[in-house]
């Protein structure tokens, strides 16, 4: 399929580093699937937990697990790896995967999950069927209640693996029946390593600031990083910071950073120039404000200033969410930010 499609790929980059072979390798599948780790050793981050699961996979008899953590840190990947390692060739028959897009009301738990748990599947000795419930925190409480007894009754044949973003939405009886594993956000260096790895494998042309931009926009979310990388590489060919922010449709953080620094120095005119520029470029108010927040968190400034800034940005974001997404709100924010370091006599 890839071969026949090659001549058609007009938007494929004509950069010198991009050669024919890599294009045929690229195909059209999303890279997050293409580069989804299959072995435990390939999983990025949370090494301690992953190593422990690896031992379990070798010895069999894994307890029910809940993996909790922010998006894009490899929760589902870990569970799939585990299932693959445990079941091997019978992966297809032995695994039931349900995520939030599946209907998961109480009926599904009562019927589909129970039926699967009752089903007889020929598995190698010492293996269990695995039911994967992705995004389990979106399950209704009733469904979770119905699940708890099921988990116990079929424990001799079936294991559950749950993935969720916040563990507090999982009811206590279920937490009690599982070993809870907490995943933390990936560090920038971990994301960077993987991104560079993919770049090398895909033979992309990139600049360093481009990769930096990818890592910045990802915020520790590997899925986002690879998606952005792929969209930039396939859409615009070259991975540079301009292209990345064009693809992600985000204001350039350097501009925003400059704007904030002007605010710290109470230089309203300069700050407003940047804001007006961003506004003219057509960015949505919400994109601008969330970008300001993100940049503000990472910009070095005095603790007090940062705190006050975040507070003001928060209030502005609240208003924008409530519907007043105008330039006026943003300019008002800038003015308030500028006034922060002014002496009070001048302000009043």
């Amino acid at each position, binding site marked *: 399929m890839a071969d026949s499609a090659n001549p058609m790929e007009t938007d494929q980059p004509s950069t010198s580093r991009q050669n024919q072979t890599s294009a045929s390798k690229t195909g059209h599948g999303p890279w997050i699937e293409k580069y989804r780790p299959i072995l435990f050793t390939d999983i990025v981050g949370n090494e301690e937990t992953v190593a422990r699961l690896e031992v379990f996979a070798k010895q069999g008899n894994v307890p029910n697990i809940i993996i909790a953590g922010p998006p894009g840190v490899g929760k589902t990947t870990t569970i799939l790896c585990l299932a693959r390692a445990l079941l091997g060739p019978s992966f297809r028959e032995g695994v039931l995967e349900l995520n939030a897009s599946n209907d998961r009301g109480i*009926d599904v738990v009562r019927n589909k999950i129970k039926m699967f748990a009752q089903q007889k599947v020929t598995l190698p000795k010492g293996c269990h069927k695995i039911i994967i419930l992705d995004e389990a925190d979106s399950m209704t409480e009733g469904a979770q209640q119905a699940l708890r007894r099921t988990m116990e009754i079929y424990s*001799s044949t079936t294991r559950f693996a749950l993935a969720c973003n916040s563990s*507090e939405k999982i009811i206590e009886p279920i937490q009690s029946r599982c*070993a809870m594993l*907490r995943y933390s956000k990936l560090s920038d260096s971990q994301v960077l390593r993987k991104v560079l790895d993919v770049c090398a494998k895909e033979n992309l042309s990139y600049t360093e600031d481009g990769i930096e931009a990818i890592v910045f926009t990802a915020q520790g979310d590997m899925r986002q990083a690879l998606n952005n990388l792929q969209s930039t590489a396939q859409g615009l060919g070259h991975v540079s910071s301009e292209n990345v922010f064009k693809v992600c449709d985000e204001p350039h953080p350097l501009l925003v950073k400059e704007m904030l620094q002007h605010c710290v120095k109470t230089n309203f005119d300069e700050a407003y120039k940047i804001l007006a520029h961003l506004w003219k470029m057509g960015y949505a108010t919400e994109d601008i404000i969330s970008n300001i*927040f993100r940049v503000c*968190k990472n910009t070095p400034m005095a*603790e007090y200033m940062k705190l006050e800034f975040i507070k003001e940005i928060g209030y502005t974001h609240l208003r924008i969410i409530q519907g007043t997404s105008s330039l006026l709100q943003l300019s008002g924010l800038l003015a308030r930010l500028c006034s922060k370091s002014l002496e009070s006599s001048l302000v009043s």
Partner: protein
Amino acid sequence: MALKGSKRKLTGWVTPSFDDFEVSSSTAQTKRRPKGSGKKSAKGGLSLWVDLYAPTKRDDLAVHKKKIEEVETWIVEAMSGIRGRQFLLLSGPSGCGKSATMRVLAREAGLNLIEWINPTSSYYVSVFEDEESKWIPEGYIMPPTQIEVFQEFFLRTCKYSSVCEPSKKNNLVLIEDFPNVFLRDPSSLHTVLRKFRNVGSGLVVFIVTDTTYRQSSVKTLFPADIQQELSMIHIQFNAIANSILLKALNRILGMKSMCEGSGPIPSREALESLIEASGGDVRSSVNALQFAVKKDVRQLSELFSGTRKSKRLSKSKPRNGSKSSTVLLQEPQGSQDDFGGLAAVGGKDTALFLFRALGKILYCKRDTEMGIMDPLPKHLKAHERMPVLENAEEVYEKMAMGASTLNTFLHQNMTPFYADIDSVSQALHYMTDADVLASEWTDRGVLEDYVASVSVRGLMHANKGSVSSGGLRTFTRPQWFSVHKQHQEQLSALKYDYRNSFLSLEELTTVLVPLKAKVDAARGKGNFTVTRDVGLFTHSFSKSTAERLGEHDAHNGLPEMDEELCLGMTKDDDEISRNALQSNEELADDNFSNDDADEDFRIDEFPDD
């Protein structure tokens, strides 16, 4: 399943009607009889430790002796046919051994234990389908509804004893997996029970799990009047004490080494930290143990190293009254590593994990050597601080906890960390800002990060670092949850009691109920607790709740608190001049009733410390 197939036996009358049920009862019987160690090691690779090492004897139960005795008394009395000992209700937090106790005792008493399991329904009516427009062929028999199936099961199992096991005369029906209908419409359950009461002779045990944060379904499923009507015995289980838990884990490790040869045994310290993390939940601690023991044991202790450190510290300075089980917090000195290590394997979402995060925020260690990085202009010098060691956002992200929940915890525990009223007011100022940001519930997901940043940074900033001399402090669970829960329960109880009243809820809680409570009190009667509880609201509440986080007491603190509240009132009320209190009461009541049933976490009360 394959294993089960060979061991199938008919255990009860209703067995053929649903498949699940049979599986369950055979599990119950085969699993819980680990006689020979040979059989166990063969199965060892397949079962969860929770099943494999389930208690088989009374001595193995990790439950307080008194509770076991209470349950046993009920069984003996019920079997001897004392009237009004037909129903038993067990409640308690998850993993405190309710079901295990019942099973063990039932076996010892020679009862035939039958558990109700919700059947898989083959028939499915779409909610959106119009019932009337659907064509049903003549003579088509609709499959029975859930209630009908349940009722059938219930009446039959209770009436007839098992044919296959004639030695076991009496049936004991265990209902843990309540059909969903009953949770929505408890009155249908009550109807079934009333009907049964006139017919059956078997024993019925209900097991309901309490939750920490939400209103427990005990009160909705079995309101007080139903309990009275059916003369139901209610036994409340508490979370398991750490010492008993340790014994249980040691027993498991002993059994494990007996049948699998001498495996590595984790150190006592490692076990203790694991128990601490599980918060009195035996099931979760066994799960965690199974998970943790797998690898090298040396790593187990490393895994919990963060915990161990604080543990050792708490031992070296035992305090009066509260023993080492009180989790004391040292000033966090560890770096990211131990934080991450602790994050790797935890039991439930319990305290210990929170401790470290809270400690990082509230103690707010600053780097004293680096000097000030970004100087502020002269007039803001008061706000200048040494650089903080922890990044506020990082701490928050590692917690995997909602920002509003975090805020309630911070709010509960913040006051002792500030030296003067100015810093307290400054800190609270930022917390209120965060609260405003959190108020927009439709967009909470978007603003969550702001909420956390503002409150955490605000608390850190307001802390001038002059109170570090105190050293160790205990953290407590927010009262908000227990107050909210109690409020919910009392509201629903009131609604039920005054269901014939035409008054609105506000009028009811502020006018009628206080009046009635006063009248009752004056006439020296009025044992009707709900009216008293709501009508005579006093200050005794704030005194009674200082639940220590993570200690096992934290869990049983919830039910006990209610009792204490009632006691406090009966003692206090006659003396205290009511006029002075009246305005307060009504205010408090008003606040409570405005606070609606939604589940958002707001900060409503101010702990007076």
